[in-house]
């Protein structure tokens, strides 16, 4: 079959800075090509260049041929006739990608009417059909709604509907599921597959998520520093990688199907496109680096059938784990320590539900947290996981505020927050520290690293912060001589290390980690995860680890609590929960996470949840999960369902250290 889209020698420069250098690929009808890379690798710019959507300052060279027609340098009118008709695009952030002031139906109808001579009414009818196709309930009614009235997942469905409105031959998806929760991601990927079946289009999938690629793509192109460094069929690249970068990337991804053990991070951080190292751009970070690597940038070498890699030592490259250093047998489950550092029971937090930006008025109550309980023992790590809207952030904020809870009990380091004096609160603040998600946002940009680390010391009256600052920097693996720099001068991973160093300054006993690695690229993430693991062992810390990424939690936590709609669905020892989850929500959540393993992805069966999370302002009666529960829908009898509708289940201990809030909990292997 002839390729629909052929890209050769594509280059994009912004001023003097090359963002993309010599990208080439082709896709055939019905094929899925994934372009994988970390931030700054030039993958999104490549996509925008194909569509001719780059800002005016960009200079594009090379060739992009669509059905043999050259697009680079084509007149704007010709491009307009192709955009949305032959090639269409799905963007990352579905909120900002839809015009806020027009109805969703009208926006889809507009896409239809640009390319087809149909009346307004017919275009609207077509828009409703498209909305139905992408699985939007009550499409005729929802077509009249505005974008802000949709959830993130539903908005992305709308974007897909718009992209397939004119039966395109190529659909370019730029990180289409990055902004979404895992269960929603699974839904949207299904919709994309369906859209592809309906249109027979080729899909170019741009992503950083190796798991998504494994289950979705036919071929992969790995980008690094603006260039492709490895291209090939999915199985070849995943099982027989020939470029050390690909190997490193695969080795540094935390996986839900492997417990504990050190991840293998890639040293250093990606080069800036303005200052590339001589020779191979990956050279400075490469474990196989030799002098010859610096001579010139290696071309893409043929390393197998349809498999090319840009490494002069490709024959020596081996995937991690193939040399016999497979992960160690899991350590025996240790007894839980006796002393409790954090105890939460029956915690409740409501917010007023306000409507309207100008005419603010209260229209209800959001039950963000509705009776949550767990405890953390000394030296233990509890992972608190859940999707957006689950109440995990509210729970965390309640703990950090150290205020008396609305209802329930909060005991931090042995003291009840409802009866705290001023002095005691300050004392707790010294012993409980926090590390935030975005390291750049959590460090005051106007302070030097020295001042940042000295601030907690000064606040709590520790003398001589200078020595301690140097000590802290070396503790987290940074050069103490960098104390006079500003956080902006560090890379993402280094900044997060500064954040961790600040949290450790006062030698706390409990560290609260709020998504500490989710803002980092995979290759850097691994290093921070390893650091957190090492620090815990060395300093005997307890962690409360809040995250949406279950794979990261599996690597770091001893116990895990899964939250759904303001309550805990399942809690227990990590291996037990991950290997044999008991709550239907935990099962669905785990099955929704894609594995970076193409063969297993193809054979896995996904438990797809239907629809969106119900509004926490109006939770269902009885069990909160029943409206989306696959078990409730398919397995239970009407009699059994009655219990789910009427009685809200509490967490019941069902195994040694595993409990689930389900009337009909049973173990099931889903990973």
């Amino acid at each position: 079959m002839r390729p629909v889209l052929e890209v050769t020698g594509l280059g994009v420069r912004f001023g003097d800075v090359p963002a993309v250098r010599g990208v080439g690929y082709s896709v055939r009808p019905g094929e899925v090509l994934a372009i994988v890379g970390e931030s700054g690798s030039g993958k999104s710019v490549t996509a925008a260049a194909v569509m001719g959507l780059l800002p005016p300052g960009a200079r594009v060279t090379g060739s992009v041929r669509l059905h043999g027609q050259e697009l680079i340098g084509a007149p704007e009118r010709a491009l307009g006739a192709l955009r949305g008709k032959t090639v269409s695009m799905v963007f990352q952030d579905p909120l900002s990608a839809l015009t806020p002031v027009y109805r969703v139906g009208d926006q889809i109808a507009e896409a239809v009417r640009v390319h087809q001579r149909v009346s307004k009414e017919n275009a609207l009818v077509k828009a409703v059909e498209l909305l139905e196709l992408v699985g939007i309930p009550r499409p005729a009614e929802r077509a009249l709604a505005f974008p802000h009235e949709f959830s993130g997942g539903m908005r992305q469905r709308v974007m897909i509907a718009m992209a397939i409105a004119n039966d395109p031959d190529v659909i370019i998806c730029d990180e289409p599921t990055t902004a979404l929760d895992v269960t929603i991601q699974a839904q949207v990927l299904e919709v994309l597959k369906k859209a592809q079946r309906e249109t027979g289009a080729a899909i170019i999938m741009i992503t950083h998520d190796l798991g998504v690629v494994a289950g979705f793509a036919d071929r992969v192109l790995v980008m690094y520093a603006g260039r492709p460094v490895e291209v090939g069929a999915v199985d070849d690249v995943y099982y027989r990688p020939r470029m050390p970068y690909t190997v490193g990337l695969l080795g540094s991804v935390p996986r839900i199907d492997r417990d504990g053990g050190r991840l293998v991070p890639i040293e250093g951080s990606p080069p800036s496109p303005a200052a590339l190292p001589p020779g191979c751009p990956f050279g400075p970070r490469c474990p196989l680096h030799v002098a010859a690597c610096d001579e010139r940038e290696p071309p893409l070498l043929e390393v197998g059938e349809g498999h090319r890699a840009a490494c002069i030592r490709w024959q020596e490259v081996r995937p991690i784990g193939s040399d016999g250093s497979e992960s160690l047998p899991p350590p025996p489950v240790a007894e839980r320590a006796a002393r409790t550092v954090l105890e939460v029971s029956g915690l409740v937090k409501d917010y007023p539900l306000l409507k309207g930006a100008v005419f603010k008025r209260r229209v209800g109550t959001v039950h963000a947290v509705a009776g949550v309980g767990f405890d953390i023992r000394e030296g233990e790590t509890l992972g608190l996981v859940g999707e957006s809207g689950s109440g995990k952030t509210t729970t965390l904020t309640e703990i950090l505020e150290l205020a008396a809870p609305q209802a329930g009990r909060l005991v931090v380091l042995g003291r009840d927050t409802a009866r705290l004096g001023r002095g005691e609160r300050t004392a707790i603040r010294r012993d409980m520290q926090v590390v935030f998600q975005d390291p750049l946002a959590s460090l005051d940009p106007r302070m030097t690293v020295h001042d940042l680390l000295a601030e907690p010391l000064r606040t709590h009256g520790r003398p001589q912060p200078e020595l301690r600052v140097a000590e802290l920097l070396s503790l987290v693996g940074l050069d103490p001589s960098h104390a006079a720099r500003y956080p902006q001068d560090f890379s993402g991973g280094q900044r997060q290390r500064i954040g961790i160093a600040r949290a450790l300054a006062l030698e706390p006993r409990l560290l609260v980690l709020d998504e500490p690695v989710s803002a980092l690229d995979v290759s850097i993430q691994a290093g921070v995860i390893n650091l957190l693991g090492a620090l815990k062992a060395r300093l005997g810390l307890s962690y409360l680890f809040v995250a949406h990424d279950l794979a990261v939690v599996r690597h770091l936590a001893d116990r895990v609590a899964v939250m759904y709609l303001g309550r805990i669905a399942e809690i227990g020892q990590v291996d037990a929960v991950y290997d044999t989850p008991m709550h239907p929500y935990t099962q669905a959540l785990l099955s929704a996470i894609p594995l970076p393993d193409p063969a297993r992805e193809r054979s896995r069966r996904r438990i797809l949840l239907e629809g969106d999370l119900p509004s926490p302002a109006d939770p269902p009666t009885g069990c909160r999960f029943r409206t989306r529960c696959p078990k409730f829908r398919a397995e239970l009898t009407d009699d059994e369902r009655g219990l789910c509708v009427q009685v809200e289940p509490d967490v019941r201990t069902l195994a040694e250290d595993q409990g689930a809030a389900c009337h009909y909990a049973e173990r099931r292997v889903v990973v």
Partner: protein
Amino acid sequence: MTLSQEELAEELTGGVPARVPSRLRTVAGRFFRSRQGLAGFAVLALMFLLAFAGPLVSRWSYIDKDFTAFLRPPSPAHWFGTLQTGADVYALTLRGMQKSLVVGLLAALISTALAALVGAFAGYFLGWTDRVLSRLTDLLLVLPAFLILAIMSPLFGAGQWVLFVVVLALFLWMVTSKVVRGMTISLKEREFIRAARYMGVPPVRIVFRHVIPNLSSLLIVDATLNVSAAILTETSLSYFGFGIQPPDVSFGTLIADGSRTAMYAPWTFWFVAGLLVVTVLAVNLVGDALRDAFDPAAKRAR
């Protein structure tokens, strides 16, 4: 004893080859690289030089009257001509410029400081602090500033221009304060402020150490633009006799006098008007260039 902070910073930097440029230097670099900023700054500097050094090179002072020359056009003796009273326009104009520049700078400084304090405290503490401060801001917005200043003008008699500056500043801060309040509310949710709070840093210290410094770019730009707003307001008020009172002179009083004779003696109007426009233009250019220098993403991203 211990090393001072600076010494330590220096000692620690020893190993690092190139010192990271400070933020101030980066901003200044960007500012002076923009043609607009450079031109505005140069003109403004020139205006200051003229206002404060200019009178030294003239034979006439602003109180002198030349009884041999009434309402004469510019000549070697009187560079900008003379008024009907025989006063030298050059000397008068520079005197007026001095006053207007000082009034503008002071009023801008006071009003921006007020805006920063009120906005930051209202936004950070919310609750009743916010309610009280916001009501106050709203009230001052509703009061017609011009009217209050005009009514109070008898109090600004000879030598009382400082009072005038304070009252003027009192009517310039509200809009900025609202902006500051809004930004503080969003800043409060930023992680570095939350980090400081959970670390146990007292709230007032957070406001001064973290909140206000992080709004400094907004505040500096705003202060600059307030200089021109203050000069313009002063001019308009003085034009109607509600601002600077005689024997003090300012741009406003001079323009009021000049506009009456402008038809047949253009030099009495155009020199003052021209210098005023050039000064305000220069201030605005500096403000605009500063904004770009502080926030390069705003323009360069596109």
